[in-house]
């Protein structure tokens, strides 16, 4: 009788745990894991529009990396993503680090600045993209109007309309949108530094700049690990902002074309060439995924080793 009761209890407990775990597990397997795995497998097949054809091994991968029609565009987009990553590292993450330090010093009004800097982060990329597209308009945009008012009318530019300024303008809009994120992650990192360390540094004669670069910067390496990794993933998945501000073809003349746009065009086609090509699209997606995963892992591992336990 006693063991019967115990067995029944054990079965009930197992059923209860299964009831809790299985539904979320099933959701993840169906809508995340399975699509990712089939992206991998279907990249090895020829695709005729949306219909899968023969197994062709690595041909799709070879096409997008070195093939005549694809390679030039793939590598141009890749270079643009690299530029975006490094430019954002300077104007978004590094500026965010400095702003975090200013807030950390708690000057007058720091609480308000903390809320203000994060405000654009909650807005949608579509909204931010259109807003800056209007501001950057060559004729009536706020930026050029401001230059006129400041007597700098000769600096007026068609910012989004010429190859030299289009991608940098997109980078700046992105930095405006996101700078609050690294700033507040760094701020949280700085607040974990024991006060005694900064007090000791000051007693040893550190000025503010030395304290920032030689004491604080090494001690917030965990924040650098996370912000740099997320920036890298974001820069190589970049899609919505260039799509809104520069269009699916990365205008003007492909000067803002990045891998996200190129992948989307290849997979689903665009207005000028409405052809769907799931084989090459999947190959691009798999290569992007592997590249992002490998580099993000390397960045994380490298910086983790430099983290100092507090």
């Amino acid at each position, binding site marked *: 009788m006693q063991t019967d009761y115990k067995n029944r209890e054990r079965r009930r407990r197992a059923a209860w745990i299964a009831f809790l775990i299985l539904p979320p597990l099933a959701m993840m397997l169906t809508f995340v894991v399975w*699509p990712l795995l089939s992206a991998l497998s279907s990249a090895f097949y020829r695709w005729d529009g949306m219909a899968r054809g023969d197994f062709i091994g690595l041909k799709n991968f070879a096409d997008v990396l070195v093939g005549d029609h694809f390679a030039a565009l793939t590598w141009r987009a890749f270079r643009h993503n690299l530029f975006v990553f490094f430019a954002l590292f300077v104007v978004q993450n590094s500026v965010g680090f400095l702003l975090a330090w200013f807030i950390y010093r708690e000057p007058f009004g720091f609480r308000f600045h903390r809320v203000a800097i994060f405000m654009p982060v909650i807005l949608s990329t579509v909204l931010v993209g259109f807003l800056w597209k209007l501001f950057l308009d060559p004729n009536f945009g706020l930026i050029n109007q401001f230059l006129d008012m400041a007597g700098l009318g000769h600096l007026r530019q068609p910012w989004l309309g010429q190859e030299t300024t289009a991608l940098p303008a997109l980078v700046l809009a992105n930095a405006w949108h996101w700078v609050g994120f690294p700033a507040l992650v760094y701020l949280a990192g700085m607040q974990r530094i024991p006060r005694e360390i900064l007090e000791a540094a000051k007693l040893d004669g550190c000025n503010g700049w030395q304290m920032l670069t030689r004491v604080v910067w090494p001690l917030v390496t965990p924040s650098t690990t996370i912000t740099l990794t997320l920036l890298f993933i974001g820069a190589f998945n970049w899609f919505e902002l260039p799509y809104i501000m520069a269009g699916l073809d990365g205008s003007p003349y492909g000067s803002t074309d990045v891998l996200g746009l190129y992948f989307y065009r290849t997979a689903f086609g665009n207005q000028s060439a409405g052809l769907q090509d799931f084989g090459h699209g999947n190959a691009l997606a798999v290569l992007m995924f592997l590249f992002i995963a490998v580099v993000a892992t390397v960045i994380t591992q490298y910086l983790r080793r430099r983290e100092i336990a507090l």
Partner: protein
Amino acid sequence: MTSHAATNDPLFPRSSAGSLIAAALLIGNTVLMLYPIVIMVFSAFKTTAEIFDAPFSLPDFTYVENFARIWGETSLPGYFVNSVVITGTSILLTLILGTMGAYGLARYSFPGNSAIFMFFLAGLMLPLKLAVIPLFLQMRDFGLLDTRLGLILIYTAMGLPSTIFIMTGFLRTLPVELEEAARIDGASEPRIMFSIMLPLSIPPMVIAAIQNAVPTWNDFFFPLVFIQTDARKTLPQGLSVFMGEYTTNWGMLFAGLTIAALPLTLVYILMSRQFIRGMTAGAVK
């Protein structure tokens, strides 16, 4: 939030040159952050001609024609309702399923527990956008292409890793004595979960909800791929349609952007602390 909030911190006295420079640069930055948003709202109350002639001027806020036209003749109100339904339902489902999973993982030991937890954690880093082609074919086979339900299911699944991460971390910190006392009193496992543990778990649920609600509300990519019918479009997607229709009417454009920005901005102003915690959860220890 802060460790050294004394009004005059000996380490960084407010009257020191460094603090004054920091204050000045922060003011400059805050102007840069807020001014574009202010101009957007100002311009929404102007005619297009006024925007072109005097872009920086303060309107008198009596000209509301732009908003009236958006309400009366565009599809933006419908897009808005779709976004509310899709975001609301998927966040609710994510919270229910995520809390169930997290509760099972955090409060019971069983074979495979840590493997399943790692499996969910791995989902935090996977960019699902890159799997959009197979997802497209899957939605087509399920008959979910061009439906709101399809988006809801995708967002629910995408929200699970972070919800499980946040909720498991919290539920593990609740003391065992709580449930043991109830168990001795004869409470069943579901009863312990619903009457004792979950009422204590509201704050992390808010954090998890915010972390997923903001990107879901703002998402453009999945609606772009999956939704074609105008009546089913979400706000960011609908905004891009609207911006294309009224390209030369800048008053309407700024009014549309203002309406799209309004809900989240208002909630953010009321709950900025929770928003900041929610959106940096996982990136901040």
